[in-house]
């Protein structure tokens, strides 16, 4: 029953996406909002057991391979997450495709969902990912319902091929659709390929996760616009989720179900953090651009005076992304690190060195994301405005503020009570119930207590604030501009060039980038060869 309703909902969303432009945008927006709520409600119903493990075969699709929908706990969890964190201005077709990909019960539906994730004409990475998914599932077992693959999971070389193809698909997807990429890995490698895979399967996943985390944090540090930072910064949480899945695969192979459950918990916390932060930061980036008229960091500055609510939402998102306690990002980081420790306890020397390497990359990624967060907030929202347009920025419309404030509130709540985030995933992570106030690792009686930490922090901060004099007695002084000549009258906020800019903030990293090997594209090689030939021709032509 729930699955039939879900199928109808997805069809309605797809129809809404194909609606002619004459339909007023208000109706489309209302339709999207209503279907998001309905999707979330149906996902909760699935989680509560109303959907069971039944599979619904739809009367559409290629001959002999009808499309299937399945509402097991894994699918329901990710559906809930997608419905809760879909962008405000989502395309209906994109939402329908994401829901279809997550609920897919066979290879074709999964590939179709992945192909249409953008909600429009599929781009190159999504076509590649969909092709990889089809190839992986064709290699895994007979077409049709996933039950056939589960009954006879692939082994040996065939299984390794499935692993490689799924990793390729996830790598192509993770930048644009991190949640679906993580879901794809969990579905194909943990669910369909069965529990009887070798322990080395964890290694490529852990390495991929570490690489994604590092690349995302690095890009967030060097990005020049609000949107680029907002899209890249949460990637290290997606990388943590992939590391968690790899550790779960490893722990299952060496028969440590408790460690596997812990690693799956870590992966789920990280993917929830990734989805929430990405949605929140992109929304805030839209709001700030609408208010300040630009998305370039080097033209912003001092926005906190003009848009305090947007700045507060940015701060909440960046706090989570930078993995600072007691935020959700730190809870995920803590859980991933505990899983790494557990894996190092059970594995051999090579596994242990791999764990140490992954920990090193993860630490670097967390440090870099802290740098990116401070850079964005400090340059964009603090200090003095860098352009007159920024000095006259307007606060975001109320619609944005409510949506962003809601997401920020949810992120803060889940950071304080990670057990709340872990409650829906108990069906597929098979982890024991968590105490409400703490995250614990294994039989260890101590752990991470976010609420106690928040209480202590707030108590000390309040005492210090009380002890200081109220702000009303303060006097304001002009900013010392580092010994430059006083600004001319047409620069009322001082010379913006005397401030530290976004590029100079990460200048050492840019210099480091100049030393890194550049990615050689085919075009760049052609250009280089042409230049060489020209020089050769010039040398020959000269007497």
């Amino acid at each position, binding site marked *: 029953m729930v699955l039939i309703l879900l199928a109808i909902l997805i069809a309605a969303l797809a129809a809404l996406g194909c609606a002619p432009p004459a339909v007023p945008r208000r109706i489309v927006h209302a339709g999207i909002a209503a279907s998001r709520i309905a999707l979330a409600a149906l996902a909760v119903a699935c989680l509560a057991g109303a959907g069971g493990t039944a599979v619904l075969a739809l009367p559409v699709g290629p001959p002999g391979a009808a499309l299937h929908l399945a509402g097991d706990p894994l699918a329901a969890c990710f559906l809930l997450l997608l419905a809760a964190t879909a962008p405000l201005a989502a395309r209906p077709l994109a939402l329908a495709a994401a829901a279809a990909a997550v609920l897919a019960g066979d290879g074709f539906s999964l590939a179709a969902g992945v192909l249409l994730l953008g909600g429009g004409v599929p781009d190159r990475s999504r076509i590649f990912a969909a092709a990889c998914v089809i190839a992986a599932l064709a290699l895994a077992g007979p077409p049709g319902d996933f039950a056939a693959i589960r009954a006879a999971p692939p082994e040996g070389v065939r299984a390794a091929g499935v692993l490689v193809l799924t990793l390729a698909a996830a790598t192509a997807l993770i930048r644009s659709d991190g949640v679906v990429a993580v879901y794809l890995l969990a579905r194909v490698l943990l669910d369909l390929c069965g529990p009887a895979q070798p322990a080395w399967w964890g290694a490529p996943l852990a390495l991929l996760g570490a690489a994604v985390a590092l690349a995302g944090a690095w890009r967030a540090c060097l990005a020049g616009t609000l949107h680029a930072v907002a899209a890249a910064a949460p990637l290290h949480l997606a990388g943590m989720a992939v590391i968690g899945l790899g550790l779960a695969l490893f722990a299952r192979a060496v028969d440590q179900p408790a460690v596997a459950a812990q690693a799956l918990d870590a992966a789920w916390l990280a993917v929830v953090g990734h989805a929430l932060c990405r949605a929140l930061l992109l929304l805030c980036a839209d709001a700030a651009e609408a208010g300040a008229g630009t998305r370039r960091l080097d033209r912003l*500055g001092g926005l*906190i005076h003009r848009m305090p609510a947007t700045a507060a939402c940015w701060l909440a998102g960046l706090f989570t992304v*930078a*993995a600072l*306690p007691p935020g959700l990002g730190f809870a995920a980081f*803590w859980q991933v*690190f*505990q899983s*790494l*420790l557990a894996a*190092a306890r059970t594995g051999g*020397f090579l596994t*242990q060195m791999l764990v*140490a*390497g992954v*920990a*090193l990359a993860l*630490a*670097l990624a967390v*440090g870099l994301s*802290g*740098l990116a*967060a*401070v*850079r964005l*907030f*400090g*340059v964009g929202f*603090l*200090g*003095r405005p860098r352009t007159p347009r920024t000095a006259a920025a307007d606060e975001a419309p109320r619609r944005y503020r409510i949506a962003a404030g809601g997401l920020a509130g949810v992120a803060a709540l889940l950071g304080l009570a990670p057990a709340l985030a872990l409650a829906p995933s108990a069906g597929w992570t098979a982890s024991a119930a968590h105490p409400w106030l703490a995250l614990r690792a294994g039989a*260890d*009686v*101590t752990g*991470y207590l976010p609420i106690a930490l928040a209480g*202590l*922090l*707030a108590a*000390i*901060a309040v005492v*210090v*604030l009380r002890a*200081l*004099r109220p*702000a009303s007695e*303060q*006097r*304001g*002084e002009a*900013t*010392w*501009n*580092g010994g430059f000549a006083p600004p001319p009258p047409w620069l009322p906020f001082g010379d913006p060039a005397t*401030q*530290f800019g976004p590029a*100079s*903030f*990460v*200048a*050492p990293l840019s210099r480091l980038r100049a030393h890194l090997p550049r990615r050689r594209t085919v075009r760049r090689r052609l250009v280089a060869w042409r230049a060489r030939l020209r020089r050769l021709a010039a040398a020959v032509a000269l007497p």
Partner: protein
Amino acid sequence: MTILAALIAQLVHIALTIAAAPTLVGLLRWGEARLAGRAGPPVLQPWHDLARLVRKRAGRVEAASIVTGVALPARLAALGVAASLVPSFTLGMAFSPAADLLMIAGLLAIARAATAVAAMDAGAASGGMAASRVMLLACAAEPALLLVMLVLGLQAGSLNVDLIAAMQAENGGDWRAGAVTALAAVLLVVPVDTMRHDGLVLDLAGPDLAVAGFADALRVLLWCNLVGALFLPFGMAASGASPAAWFAGGACWLVRTLVMAAALVALHTLVGRIPHARAAAMLGVAALLGLLAAAFLFAETRTA
């Protein structure tokens, strides 16, 4: 009764920390001046400075927002919580179940981010430059710290500072290559993390400067306590020990802190200010040492 004892121990520890932090800074300044051949300020001078700054009228630059007013107390709160969690003279204090090592590192990161954000709030070039340096050095310090945590967590079976300290005290003289290398990595991180960046406080005055100064002092003491608890917890009263054992623990803590203060003074006198490029290189070496410590530990557990 034990709960009451744990609570009393916690309160005594907090009072000791508050009393010792500015005094330790005064001691460091006095020692450096003596080694440089000057008479040096009185040891209690930081207390007088703090009192004078708190009495002054607050002044902030025009561009500053509410962030300065919130970030500085938040930094002090983060460092205060971290300092109250790291044991000094006894184990088993009331907050000890929450004393997670990863969380303490997170609190240090909060403090760093808050000071960087407060410095950028004034909108001057010097603040931004100092903030950038602090955050870049933090990026380089993070891998070394996390690898050391990995080593200690694997040895003790937990990341709780109390359990790690108890494990190290139990091992006593049985120092393995892994623990020594990890200690070397931490000792490379400490001078970089406690480095003074003048640009951070250039635009602060009055009570704001007092809060920043007290937090700086707390950070030095926190690092001393952390190194002491993780690597040299000798003489620390065990969890549930009688208050009589606290005095012995307190004396050991005093000796330990004085030795570390002497080492810091010697370092500052011999090396002077560490240039930023060399600081980054030191942190890179620290990360490599952390990796080496992990390798040693894994090899030891193989052969054991």
